[in-house]
């Protein structure tokens, strides 16, 4: 990873170029994701649209007036009767406008209006929990890698190995059983107490945090293990590099050496953060159903039980979009802190 001097271009234009490439990639990926959403119901045997219509007709007995509306909206949204490419362009245009169709189970409410409030709950859990796990896990892992052979290293490795393999949703069940049913310290589910109106009062926020504790804990505990394991190995590799051995020979203080190793090992972990968000999100969606937490996972779960495809698809599209925005933010941070991008030099 040698640096190329003198600078060919200014730091800011390098950062911009890096970010531009990333943005183009994320937009391309987003279009692929939307295309998958478009193709799936049209290629899968058994024709989900027909299934949907049968289901709507079953409900028709209860409310014949509304049903005609649902039917028309659906025909319109699936662009029935138009050629496939026109359907696709219609779909793309509507998705980019933020129109994800109409829910079937909650007709006539728009999918976007149903999902948006839940995205706040999901990201509000995902982002802080991931960042806290990242910080604690990396710090623990770095110390473990720096102090090889100590009891601390052994216990970090042992504990991390086990907790990183616990499925979030199972930990969720265990934590609920222990802390809520047995000890009665935390509530056993939900985002806030039944009967409370969401508001910006101290009592409501306290109630939300009280419900937040267990879901937060289950995600932090599981994900910090992975970071600790990865960081330990990165630190060990870093300590063997020439500049570290040279610094040590020069008599650089222990604290300084640790700082060097820590900062340089941290860079790959920042990239890892962007990649891991998707995995954590997947696990969290499932965990939300265990906690009956009012996030998007719970919405998907409800959409699944009523076969509300517009809702499931909409949740998928919105989650992917929010994930890519988060990824782009991480890329931005990476571009700012990595001298190879900021100052120039070989990047791959």
């Amino acid at each position, binding site marked *: 990873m040698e640096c190329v001097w003198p600078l060919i271009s200014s730091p800011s234009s390098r950062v911009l170029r890096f970010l531009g490439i990333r943005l183009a990639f994320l937009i391309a990926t987003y279009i692929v994701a939307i295309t*998958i959403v478009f193709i799936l119901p049209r290629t899968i045997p058994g024709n989900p649209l027909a299934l949907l219509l049968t289901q709507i007709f079953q409900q028709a007995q209860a409310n014949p007036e509304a049903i005609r509306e649902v039917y028309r909206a659906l025909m319109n949204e699936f662009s029935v009767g138009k050629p496939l490419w026109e359907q696709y362009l219609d779909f793309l245009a509507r998705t980019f406008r933020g129109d994800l169709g109409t829910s079937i189970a909650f007709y006539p409410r728009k999918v976007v209006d149903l999902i948006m409030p839940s995205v706040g709950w999901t990201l509000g859990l995902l982002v802080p929990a991931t960042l806290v796990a990242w910080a604690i896990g990396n710090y623990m892992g770095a110390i473990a890698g720096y102090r090889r052979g100590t009891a601390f290293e052994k216990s970090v490795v042992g504990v991390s190995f086990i907790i990183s393999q*616990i499925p979030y*949703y199972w930990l969720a069940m265990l934590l*609920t059983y222990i802390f809520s049913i047995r000890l009665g310290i935390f509530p056993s589910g939900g985002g806030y107490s039944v009967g409370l109106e969401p508001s910006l009062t101290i009592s409501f926020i306290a109630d939300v945090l009280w419900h937040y504790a267990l879901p937060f804990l289950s995600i932090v505990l599981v994900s910090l293990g992975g970071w600790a394991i990865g960081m330990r190995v990165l630190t060990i590799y870093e300590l063997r590099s020439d500049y570290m051995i040279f610094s040590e020979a020069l008599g650089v203080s222990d604290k300084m050496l640790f700082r060097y190793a820590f900062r340089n090992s941290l860079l790959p972990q920042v990239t890892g953060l962007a990649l891991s968000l998707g*995995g954590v999100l997947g696990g969290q969606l499932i965990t939300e159903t265990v906690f009956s937490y009012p996030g998007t996972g719970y919405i998907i779960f409800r959409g699944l039980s009523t076969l509300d495809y517009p809702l499931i698809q909409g949740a998928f599209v919105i989650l992917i979009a929010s994930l890519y925005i988060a990824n782009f933010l991480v890329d931005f941070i990476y571009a700012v802190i990595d001298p190879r991008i900021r100052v120039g030099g070989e990047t791959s």
Partner: protein
Amino acid sequence: MVSIASATQYIVILRSNRRLALGISVFSAILIMGIVGPILYPRDPLSFAGPFETPPNAQYPLGTDTYGKDLLAQLLHGTRMSLYVGVLTALIAMAIGTLIGTLAGVRGGIIDEILMSITNIVLSIPSILLAILIASYFKVRSIEFVAFLLGITGWPWYARAIRAQLMSLREREFVYLSKMSGYSSLRLALEDLMPNMATYVFMAFVLYVNTGILGEAGLSIIGLGPTQGVTLGITLQWAALMEAFRRGLWWWFVPPGTVIVATTVSLLIIATAVDEIFNPRLRRG
């Protein structure tokens, strides 16, 4: 370089590496439980014969669920099927990953660019989310279908790793030497590349078995797992649906989760220990 060690060498390694020995013992115990367990304890995991929600007792060693189903029988059959899902997922993911990674790594150029773009795009779509979306369109899902789903959403990082390994191996001297002495591509792949990648392939296999077991359980919890049969995930799904953990029925959800964690942890320990044995940079002491 990896040389084929003799049996005695393996025993020495096992003795000196207590973690590897522990991982192998735990995993063997689970494997035996899944293979022999249902034969030694031949009770039907799906029969509604027992009393409802009884805690473990002499007649039902792990108690029963809301429908009076025997939970030990479910655990044994579930372990068997979950291992099956795991292995099948690994085979599917690795077959796709090997194909794409090798093509990209060997051909290079524009084919490499295209294949790696596809790989990176699939890698950027969270696999479990994609699996949820696809699974939601199928009303009937076999155990094999679930493994297939987890395989086709999970291959990208293996394709990338295989490509990276091939790229770095291509530049090594002994590969050049073999090329110069006129080895065919097949012989080159079998004699020079495979042995060098064997530990890597083994580790990936183990990690994909974990992906399969955990993925099946995750899909099951939200109701998108296999629609027939018994797996550890399906037992957990019913425990979640019936709120076993909110009603103190610990014998329903604790055992299947424990087996899942024990399986994945022991496999991970085996994978890491093997890596440590063959990777000198990580070797201790």
